[in-house]
Every structure is written in structure tokens, then in C-alpha cells.
């Protein structure tokens, strides 16, 4: 049951090593701080879950942020009403977002193609608008749902573990605080489990059935195969991954805001997946990391830093370089992101992972040909 093919096992080992050593290899890129690394892990889980639906079945959901938001709200409510322990919080987040996904999926999966996309988008946008306005008693609207010191926390009270500290209580795992690096390793371990689960699903008969639906749903139906339950299962699983990601967002930072459910968030996970490579195991993860990196690091570079960085250049050149580069960082980070989307999709069809594979194949083929002319290519 827990077995993997040798190739998958190797991939898992590499993946685990890469994720766990993030604090080392991210340091030169200025991204090795817990806040961002947690986000890397969480959004990777979100994208992996999204890829199970989109990558395997080809159904493009434009409303996955709704599950992220539901997971977050459930988690904070669990902290407020039950216990500061993250166990029940995560469990409830997964269950509630799963039920929510079941509801939305039941209706949305009656349609295919862009009609399905718009249905999911409509459901998510309704959730967002209501969470921002009418549902404020539950969601605390614009401000976002925050913890308070006098929350009931019935389960904690039952066990007499009421926080005695003067400040706000903190989320814990068996009494251990999960902030900072602990929080990152928690997210990292869950990410590795999520990756493993997605490998299992990709390799299972269930995954094969989903791929069959992607290539030709009508034919699957004609062979007497009822595709609906499979689709719904994929949708719910994917929604639960999103709910889990939402839960982790609230665990590492106990706040749940309505903006998490907005269509731009849904669009973000779509972009992450496509950017990395739809239907590949690594693709969504890489896409998520890249977009989060741009959002957090490129946006924080200002002209002051650029001036410092290029201070070795002669005065005029320095001003020129800084003026040009400042259009692409800080307030201009969107421009860099947009250009990157266009360039990657033009030059690396199929996303980063797919494009990388093609590149490797081409290089191999070139090596294989004995003809010297083609192999004399610059190495870079």
C-alpha cells in the first residue's frame, strides 16, 4: 500500500531533501526566513492538490481559493472554540473544505470545459463577496478573523490547559509552539506527505481512470465506465488539499481574511500550475515557489538597495542601470512577473518541467548524433 516504484521513490527522496534543506539553499537568494519558507511549503501543497484535478482530469477549476479560505476560517474557529492544538484544527479544516468541495463539485461537474470553470469561479466569488460583507459575524469581514484572549476554547478548558500567559494564545502541536522554524518544518513534512500522496494517486488505477477521462470522456462513458464518481472524488481530494493549505496558513499565522477567496487567488494557483507544468509532479511546486518568490522578494527591492548593489559601477552607468532595473523591481515587480509568464510559455512549451525535459531530450539527441557540426554548440 505504501510502496512506490523505484523511480518515484527516488523522486520522493530528492524532493524531501530539497524541501528540508531549504534554509540552506534559499539563503543566497535572500529567501531563507521562516515566513517565506512556510509560504513556499503551503502554496506548494495548494498547487499539488490543484494539479490532481487539473493535471489528471483536465478540468480547470477557477474557484479553488474558496477551499483555501474555508480551510483557514475553519482552523481559526477551531482555535477559538475548541483548542489551540493544531490536530483538531487541521482535521476539521480538511473535513469542512471536503464537504464544501463536495457541494460545489456536485453542481459544477455537471458541466465541462469553460462552463465548468465559470461555475467554480461563480461559487468562489459568491463565497468571497459574502464573506467580505453579509457573513461578517462569521468571517469578521475586511479585518479578517483574529484570535482573542477570551475565546472559549472548550476543549482546552475541559483539560484545564487554559493559557495563563498574559498575551494571546499560540497554536501548538502537543504543547509545542509551531512558529518560526518549527512551523516551517511542520509545513515541510506535510508537503512531503502531500507530494507522496500525489505520487500514489498519479500511479494508481484511480489516477489512470482520471487520465482516461482527460483524453476522452465520451469513450470512457461508452465503455460502461461511470466517470462522475471519479471526477467528484478527484475534485473533493483536490479541495481537501486546498483546505489543508488554508489550515496551515492559519496555523503559522492565526488570521483568516476574505481576500484568500478572491478570484485572483484562484487565478494564482492556476498560473502556478501552468507555469511549472500541468500534470507533472514537480511542476506545480516549482511554479508556486517561483511566483511566491517574485511576490515577496522582488517587490521588496528598492532603489536604495539597487544603488548599494551597483555602487561598484561608475557614477553615470550606475544611475542608468539602477533607473532601468528599478522599473522591474519594487513597485514594478508585476511587470517582471508578466514578462516571465510570456517568455516561459513562448520558449518552454508545457511549462518549466516539461520544457526542461524537452531541452534534455534535445541535448541527448545532439550528443547521440556523431555529426560534429550539430554538437559544436555553446555549452550554455
Amino acid at each position, binding site marked *: 500500500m505504501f510502496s512506490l516504484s523505484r523511480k518515484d521513490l527516488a523522486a520522493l527522496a530528492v524532493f524531501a531533501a530539497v524541501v528540508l534543506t531549504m534554509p540552506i539553499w534559499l539563503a543566497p537568494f535572500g529567501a531563507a526566513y521562516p515566513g517565506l519558507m512556510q509560504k513556499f511549503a503551503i502554496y506548494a501543497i495548494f498547487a499539488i492538490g490543484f494539479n490532481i484535478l487539473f493535471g489528471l482530469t483536465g478540468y480547470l477549476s477557477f474557484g479553488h481559493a474558496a477551499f483555501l479560505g474555508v480551510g483557514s476560517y475553519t482552523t481559526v474557529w477551531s482555535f477559538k472554540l475548541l483548542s489551540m492544538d493544531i490536530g483538531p484544527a487541521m482535521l476539521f479544516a480538511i473535513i469542512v473544505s471536503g464537504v464544501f468541495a463536495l457541494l460545489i463539485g456536485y453542481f459544477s461537474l455537471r458541466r465541462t470545459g469553460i462552463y465548468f470553470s465559470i461555475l467554480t469561479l461563480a*461559487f468562489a466569488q459568491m463565497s468571497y463577496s459574502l464573506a467580505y460583507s453579509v457573513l461578517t459575524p462569521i468571517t469578521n469581514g475586511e479585518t479578517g478573523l483574529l484570535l482573542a484572549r477570551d475565546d472559549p476554547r472548550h476543549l482546552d478548558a475541559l483539560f484545564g490547559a487554559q493559557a495563563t500567559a498574559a498575551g494571546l494564545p499560540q497554536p501548538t502541536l502537543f504543547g509545542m509552539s509551531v512558529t518560526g522554524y518549527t512551523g516551517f518544518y511542520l509545513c515541510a513534512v506535510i508537503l512531503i506527505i502531500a507530494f507522496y500522496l500525489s505520487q500514489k494517486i498519479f500511479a494508481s488505477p484511480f489516477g489512470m481512470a482520471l487520465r482516461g477521462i482527460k483524453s476522452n470522456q465520451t469513450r470512457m462513458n461508452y465503455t460502461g465506465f461511470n466517470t462522475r464518481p471519479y471526477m467528484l472524488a478527484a475534485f473533493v481530494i483536490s479541495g481537501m488539499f486546498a483546505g489543508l493549505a488554508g489550515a496551515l496558513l492559519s496555523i503559522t499565522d492565526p488570521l483568516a481574511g476574505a481576500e484568500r477567496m478572491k478570484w485572483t487567488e484562484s487565478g494564482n494557483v492556476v498560473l502556478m500550475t501552468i507555469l511549472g507544468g*500541468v500534470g507533472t509532479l514537480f511542476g506545480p511546486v516549482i511554479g508556486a515557489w517561483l511566483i511566491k518568490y517574485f511576490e515577496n522578494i522582488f517587490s521588496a527591492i528598492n532603489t536604495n538597495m539597487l544603488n548599494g548593489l551597483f555602487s561598484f559601477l561608475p557614477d553615470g552607468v550606475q544611475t542608468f542601470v539602477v533607473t532601468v532595473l528599478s522599473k522591474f523591481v519594487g513597485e514594478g515587480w508585476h511587470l517582471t*512577473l508578466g514578462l516571465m509568464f510570456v517568455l516561459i510559455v513562448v520558449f518552454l512549451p508545457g511549462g518549466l518541467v516539461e520544457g526542461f525535459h524537452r531541452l534534455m531530450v534535445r541535448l541527448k539527441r545532439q550528443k547521440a548524433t556523431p555529426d560534429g557540426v550539430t554538437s559544436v554548440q555553446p555549452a550554455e
Partner: protein
Amino acid sequence: MNVFLAQLLNGLDKGGAYALIALGLTLVFGTLGVVNFAHGALFMLGCFCAVTFRYLITLETVTIDPEKLSPWGSPVEVRTPLVQNWFGDFGAVLVDYSVPISILLAIPAMLIIGIAMERGLIKHFYKRSHAEQILVTFGLAIVLQEIVRSFFGANPVPQPIPSDLRGAADIGVWFGMAAHTLTYPWWRLIYLLFSAVVIGGVFAFLQFTTFGMVVRAGMADRETVGLMGIDIDRRFTIVFGLAAVVAGVAGVMYTPLLAPNYHLGMDFLVLSFVVVVVGGMGSLPGAVAAGFLLGILQSFASMTEVKSLIPGIDQVIIYLVAVVILLVRPRGLMGRRGIMEN
């Protein structure tokens, strides 16, 4: 009763705008089969054609008066407008009517932008997956809006209505009601008329010209038309240009109602997709019908009476209607089988 009529007018007005924006999008879907996430950006560029035109005709010569200092310490600038200097009263009229006149700038500008977009980028993506089309057009949209921002900043740039057309028309009087019972702004009436004319024009163009006939044939069966020796690709390029022009002029005329800012396109993107899909992919009459339907329902849903019945309905009405219609009618109001269903 007059509240009801006023809301109907609002609905028609909104509907006209929605239909205009959706028209180009569904045209591109139907002919090229491209999911164009940069369509909102085209609308935004149209708005900024009006902004640019006004900027150009209100250019001023700035001389600095070094004697006087402004309260914040920099020298006072003396500004003299150029156009009014050169053309006198005619120049003043030109400035006053800058919004409608800028349509003349917007049509060629948007045609060029549209054709350049299609030839330069979109045409390479006909055979690629929808996912990749989304990524590339979304990236393009971001780049376009950032370029606009670098010229005009992030704050909205208000565009005035020509002074003769300001204020509201007392429509009630036309129908024999008492004065002030039903008034409606002149510009919104003009916009309604304008959208009707443009929609009618596009339909007539596709229905009654040879070019339109070929395009319609190409929408139905691209390969056969190609086999008949017709260069369908060239026509489709022009269709893309046409879609850009429609979105652009819709934007120009909308600027007095909504001060344009650089990410206006993103705000309209989701809405235009909903309209197109509710109407049925690739169906022009469907898009128009859906635009008006959504506009009118949105107006009525915001009435206090309705809101007290169902709280928050005005927040979600558009999406609720979309859900209901798509569940009742599998391919939207007038969509054909097989288009964008996989």
C-alpha cells in the same frame, strides 16, 4: 413605478456596456478559439486612448518663473495651453469634446494594437492548449497594464463629459409624467444608444458583407474554408483587430462614467468572461442577450425591497444568475455543442 423604470434604464445601460465588452471576447473565441485573458486589458487601453488624446490636446508650455516660489518651495510654473492658443474657440471645443472625439484616435490605435497582438503573439498559440493561452494572455495583460501605469500612474484619471451633455434628461416629461419623476443622465443615454449602434454595426458587418460571410463560414468550419483557397488566417487577424476596436471604443465612451485606472482591465475581465459564458461560447447574440440580462437583473437586485428579502443578493446576483443558467442550459443561452467544452 418610476423607480422600476429607472432601474430598467440602469439595467439597459449596464447591459449595453457588458454586451459591448463581451462582444469582442466571444468573437475571438468563436473564430480563433483563443481564451483571451488580455481582453480586459484591451478595454483598459481603449480608456487610455481617451486619456492620451485629452493629454495631447491639453499640452501646455511650461515656463518656470524663478522669482516666485510655491508654498512647497519649488519655483512657480506658468502654464499656457497650446491647442487653445493655436485654434482659439475651436481649440476649446476640441478640449471640451475630447472624449467622443478620441474615438477617432482609438479606432486606428486599437486596430493596430489588436493586429500586432495577434500577429506577434496570439497566432503562435492557436494550436497550444487553453492553459497555455491563459498564461500567455494573462502575462501580456500584466505587461500592458504596467506599461500604462508607468505613463499615467496608479491614480484614476477622470475624463469630463462635454459641457453640453452634462446633467440629466427629464425623461418622464417625454412620456407625459410630472417633472422630475424620471430623470436620467444624458451621457448614460448616449452610451446606451452608442452600444446599440456598435452592436448593430458588428452584426451587420458579419451578416451582410462578403468578409463577414467568410468569417462566419470560418467559424463554422475552418478547414473547409481554408481548402476552398480562402486565406482564413488573414481574415481572422482582422477579426482580432475588430474585437480590439470594439473593446477599445467601449472603453473610450465609458471613461466619463468610470475614471480609468491602470488595472481597470482586471476588474472587467471576470465579468466579461461570465457574460460570454452565460451567453454561450462563441455566440454573438448570446453574449448580447446575456449582457442585457445580467445588467437588468443586477439593477433590480440592488433595490432595497429585494435586498431586505434576500440579504446580500446584490453582492452575488451576477454569479448566482450564471450558476442557475449554466445548470439549466448546459451551453449557456445560445452556445453551440462542442465549443470549449473540453
